[in-house]
């Protein structure tokens, strides 16, 4: 019995970390159609911000929940002003530019901090179910995923900013005639997307290996999930993260980690073949 609970927790963990990793990308890609290949590096910057401030004596929770998103949000803001704003509507160009950006960020971080970086220990302890052990941090990540979902939903549905952002994404020209400045909306949306990605990096920092190249391990899966999820930011990303996270974890448990990975990619191919518009293109049409 305990083993099923533990596997359920693993699945929950897989889903919530995938969701956290993808949410920022879903906002940037889903709303603004910018393919941000530097997404993995935003995660890495979030992790570095957390680790470096925590090692400098900042409280670990503040480092994760405040420093990481603030820092990466600011970086996102600068990048939007200097690079991304010239690339709206130029899908292929945005890929090339952000890929270059990702190499640049890796290079800068390596130059400053070198290839190795001391991590932070995982806060919170472990608990046991029967003879099995798991960590409270897993539950915390799941909690954070739910909180983030609620926050994004709340902001997008009930605030003026959310309304303006959605309107601008749907029809920038119309929004502009109504007195909205689309450039400013794009800028803040990109910064928010970057901040959420930074938060994800911060949250994963205590349970990951921290290197300048760590982003590479996340970027493919994040894109797969966002594309598999389709246009709706929240319901799409959540459903795709649930599907892929569960397939990966259950697959890895019952077969081997290698097949766990293979199964996820197979699931993604099948999904895109059957639902070319992503899950939300079929089931949650018009939802957020």
């Amino acid at each position, binding site marked *: 019995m305990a083993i099923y609970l533990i*596997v359920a927790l693993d699945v929950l963990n897989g889903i919530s970390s995938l969701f956290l990793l993808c949410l920022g990308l879903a906002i940037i890609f889903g709303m603004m159609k910018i393919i941000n290949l530097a997404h993995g590096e935003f995660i890495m910057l979030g992790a570095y911000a957390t680790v470096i401030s925590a090692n400098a004596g900042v409280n670990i929770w503040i480092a994760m929940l405040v420093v990481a998103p603030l820092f990466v949000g600011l970086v996102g803001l600068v990048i939007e002003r200097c690079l991304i704003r010239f690339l709206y509507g130029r899908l292929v160009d945005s890929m090339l530019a952000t890929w270059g950006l990702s190499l640049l960020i890796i290079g800068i971080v390596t130059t400053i901090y*070198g290839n190795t970086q001391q991590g932070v220990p995982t806060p919170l302890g472990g608990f*046991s179910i029967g003879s*099995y052990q*798991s960590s409270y941090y897993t539950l915390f990540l799941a909690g954070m995923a739910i909180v983030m979902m609620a926050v994004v939903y709340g902001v997008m549905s009930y605030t003026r900013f959310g309304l303006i952002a959605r309107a601008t994404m749907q029809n920038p020209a119309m929004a502009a005639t109504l007195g909205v400045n689309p450039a400013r909306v794009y800028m803040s949306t990109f910064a928010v997307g970057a901040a959420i990605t930074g938060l994800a990096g911060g949250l994963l920092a205590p*349970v*990951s*290996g921290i290197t300048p190249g*760590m982003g590479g391990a996340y970027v493919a899966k994040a894109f797969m999930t966002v594309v598999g999820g389709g246009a709706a930011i929240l319901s799409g990303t959540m459903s795709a993260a649930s599907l892929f996270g569960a397939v990966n974890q259950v697959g890895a448990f019952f077969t081997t*980690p290698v097949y766990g990975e293979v199964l996820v990619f197979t699931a993604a191919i099948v999904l895109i073949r059957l639902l070319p518009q992503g899950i939300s293109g079929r089931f949650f049409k018009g939802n957020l």
Partner: protein
Amino acid sequence: MTFSRRRFLQRSAIATTTLIAAPAVFRSGAFGAENPIVVGSLHDQSGPIAASGTPMVYALQLAVDEINAGGGLLGRPLKVIHYDTQSNIQMYSQFAQQLAVKDKVDVVHGGITSASREAVRPTFDRFKVLYFYNVLYEGGVCDRNTFCTGTTPAQTVEKLVPSAMKKAGKKAYIIAADYNYGQITAKWMTKYVKDNGGEVLSTDFFPLDVTNFGTTISKIQAAKPDLILSALVGGNHTAFYRQWTSAGMKSKIPIASTTFGLVNEPTTLDAAESDSILGAYGYFEELTTPASKSFVEKIKKAHPDSPYVSELAACTYEGVMLWAAGVKKAASIDRMKVIAALEDGIAFDGPSGKVALDKPTHHTTRNAFLAEVKDRKWSVLESYSDVKPADTASVCDLVKNPNDTKQYIINL
């Protein structure tokens, strides 16, 4: 432009003189550089493997500087031509050609992963350039043009597994990276567990970009082993040790690893995550012999921010010194004469102790050490002297088959 006969003759005379004089002028320039012996170096200084490659370059430079300070070799100074291979196999192939054809080097030290070695080894065979591979690896390379100075599983895994089993128990669970090093090392681990009367409950392989080890940790708990044997590789895989600790398993099941701490794991992980992990290598920075201390001191003095000085750096230093001893003995830099000299009982007392080249395998008989992580440093528990490369010796005999060039996969 008008041509007169006089101008034509003048110009022809100048051109001819220049052409005839050119070789002499250029050669005198070469004489000016004292005709150095050229040492090629192929190491990753950027990309994911840079933390391994950087100290190797420092060690190579240190060895060359020391040889030059002692008057060079055969009265000629050494010159290093180094290329940063950027953790990219394509760069290895390209720069290997360049070293062999354009730079015409006399020897190459380099290669880190097994994949990079196998990418460059055929090139150096073809262009007849002597090649040193100074990295611990899965064993089995049998090539008269190549010398492998690092440790192989028979030298380290053979010591690690029984000591860990003695400490923990007989039931082991193997986790390893999913490429040739991990796959082959897992086989060696299985062999030594069985040889020591133990049992392997399961072997799991992980692609290098796996970052979530939750299910693995559950599976391990379900299998209830006494001991984890790890050959996980790279930054992403260090996540295992953190997730293992955060699940509260650290104090319950001990870990022994053939890869942990080779590069930077003890310095990147927290003490709680790495304490009491066992490892075995051909060298540890923490060795307290005078030779080891002065080696580490010299590297840290020249490069205060150097990453951990591991077996990789020590073997590179020893590799260059062994080659230099061979050149001295041969009194020539002719490739075949140097190989013959190197096969003729060359040994060097390096930071890890005495290292001797083994004629039939072109590997080294060297010391091995067993250590445990304590407070983010290695604490050396035991040392084994003059351990032979028995694994490669079981498949490779270059005395009998001098034209062999392949890497044997050792069937277990």
